């Protein structure tokens, strides 16, 4: 295990996609210290800004400790291994990752897991806007993998999502799952307004009754077998899944009929 701690309080943003098990795994401590990162617009060796030491544990785990709210792109495009973060972390964490695991005990910035393809991100804290979303101009956002947020999340979470699962225990901002074409977003807390705006396909599952866009049409109350299947598979992440959720009925809203209209918002109505 490699442990990183910031040496100073960062005044400008850091771009550090080299902090990734894929990059670290075949490198010596010395080589890791020499990896280049961007401090504002200056290229600097990682070792100049972070204290880096080797800790107990397997070679594919990276641990970061401290205030890294300005450190961006950590774990970008990673495909294996594990990153554990104790403290706040900046934007683009785990962007386009395809495998491996990221665990944050703290808050994470915007574009968490944006356009990710696989792997798992768990955050115990607040998550910014556009988690699991697509970057501007992209046709598709998250294509696979799982994002678990034990806390609140911002706006446009899961925008343009095609596959994968995002589960949030706290509240979600406006436009959750906007323009999504597939995948599943589960909201255990409060679902913000305009959820599913423009969605073509996909599922938003809510245990709180949200306000609906006029372009979502109530279809029925039923028991979609898919829901207990999904919730069972999410149990391993320690989410607050109650027995009543598994056995209960759900009210289904079809939409967004302004768009293709094959998406759904499922709202739990009790058992």
């Amino acid at each position: 295990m490699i442990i990183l701690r910031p040496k100073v309080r960062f005044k400008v943003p850091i771009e550090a996609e080299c902090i990734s098990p894929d990059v670290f795994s075949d490198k010596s401590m010395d080589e890791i210290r020499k990896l280049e990162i961007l401090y504002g617009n200056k290229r600097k060796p990682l070792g100049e800004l972070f204290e880096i030491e080797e800790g107990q544990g397997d070679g594919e785990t990276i641990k970061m400790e401290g205030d890294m709210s300005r450190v961006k792109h950590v774990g970008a495009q990673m495909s294996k291994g594990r990153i554990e973060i104790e403290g706040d972390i900046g934007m683009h964490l785990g962007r386009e990752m395809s495998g491996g695991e990221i665990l944050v005990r703290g808050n994470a910035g915007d574009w968490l897991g944006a356009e990710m393809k696989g792997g798992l991100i768990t955050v115990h804290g607040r998550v910014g806007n556009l988690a699991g979303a697509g970057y501007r101009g992209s046709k598709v956002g998250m294509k696979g993998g799982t994002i678990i947020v034990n806390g609140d999340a911002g706006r446009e979470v899961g925008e343009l999502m095609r596959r994968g699962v995002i589960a949030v225990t706290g509240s979600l901002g406006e436009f959750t799952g906007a323009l999504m074409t597939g995948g599943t977003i589960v909201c255990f807390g409060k679902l913000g307004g305009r959820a599913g705006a423009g969605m073509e396909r996909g599922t938003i599952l809510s245990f709180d009754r949200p306000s609906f866009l006029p372009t979502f049409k109530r279809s029925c109350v039923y028991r979609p077998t898919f829901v207990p299947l999904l919730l069972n598979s999410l149990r391993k992440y320690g989410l607050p899944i109650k027995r009543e959720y598994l056995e209960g009925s759900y009210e289904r809203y079809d939409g967004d009929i302004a768009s293709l209209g094959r998406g759904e918002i499922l709202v739990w109505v009790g058992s």
Partner: protein
Amino acid sequence: MQVNGVEIEDTFAEAFDMIAAKLLITARDEKWALHAASTATGFATSVIACGVEAGIESLVEPDRTPDGRPGVNILIFGMSEKGLSDQLMRRVGQCIMTCPTTACFNNLDGEKTVKIGGKLRFFGDGFQLSKRVDGRRFWRIPVMEGEFLVEEEFRMRKAIGGGNFLILGENVDCVLRAAERAVEAIRGVENVITPFPGGVVRSGSKVGSKYKFLSASTNTEYCPTLRPLVKTRIPEGVNSVLEIVINGLDEKSVSDAMRVGIESACSVEGIKMISAGNYGGKLGKYLFHLHKILGEKR
């Protein structure tokens, strides 16, 4: 060799390669899961005329199914990948999708795959939804009752058909009782089924017939009514014979099933002998020697 005083003939059951799929059917309660399961495994005693051989393998408690509802495992055996695939489509489509509240999951690891949900989805007429959970892909097909959840792909793997033993006894009553006990005991073994009605077959067959157009005919050697007329294998004092046919996913399951089946059968009074159907080693590559199977445990 004897078990509980019953003679075990020193012979072997001859079994052959098949290919199998294991489906887990869930429903809101066991009743409806069983309706689907028994329909899906109906008319599936012998590949010769039914296309596949199938049966209910086990009941599954809700806490052990993916959707937390009561479930039933069924096994379906075919002779070829294509034949099995074809039958799976028909049976999932006609017997499970049609049955209220059911869902259908693959419950087997195997090297071959067959698209089931992936094809049935077209029944959804464009309104079907695809979902991935833990790397598995499912289809949600809208139906009048709600929606039918079915897995995109099912796995198939090499399996064994034709494991068997014969129960020979004084009369039909005790032989049938022994067969029932045997079937009951086999139900406790994983990954096997007994595809015949109630798990028992009375019309055992032999290869060939006097009629050119028939490839199999009644097992004359074991028909008590024909004893004087043919070369018989029925000892004196035996007036009825029943067979238990066992299909399983692997050799161990089949031999385990045979063992517990034989042992249970032997506990019934009036049973004289246990034998097995073999074809001289020409039909299948799996030979389950009764003595070996029963000896293993001791």
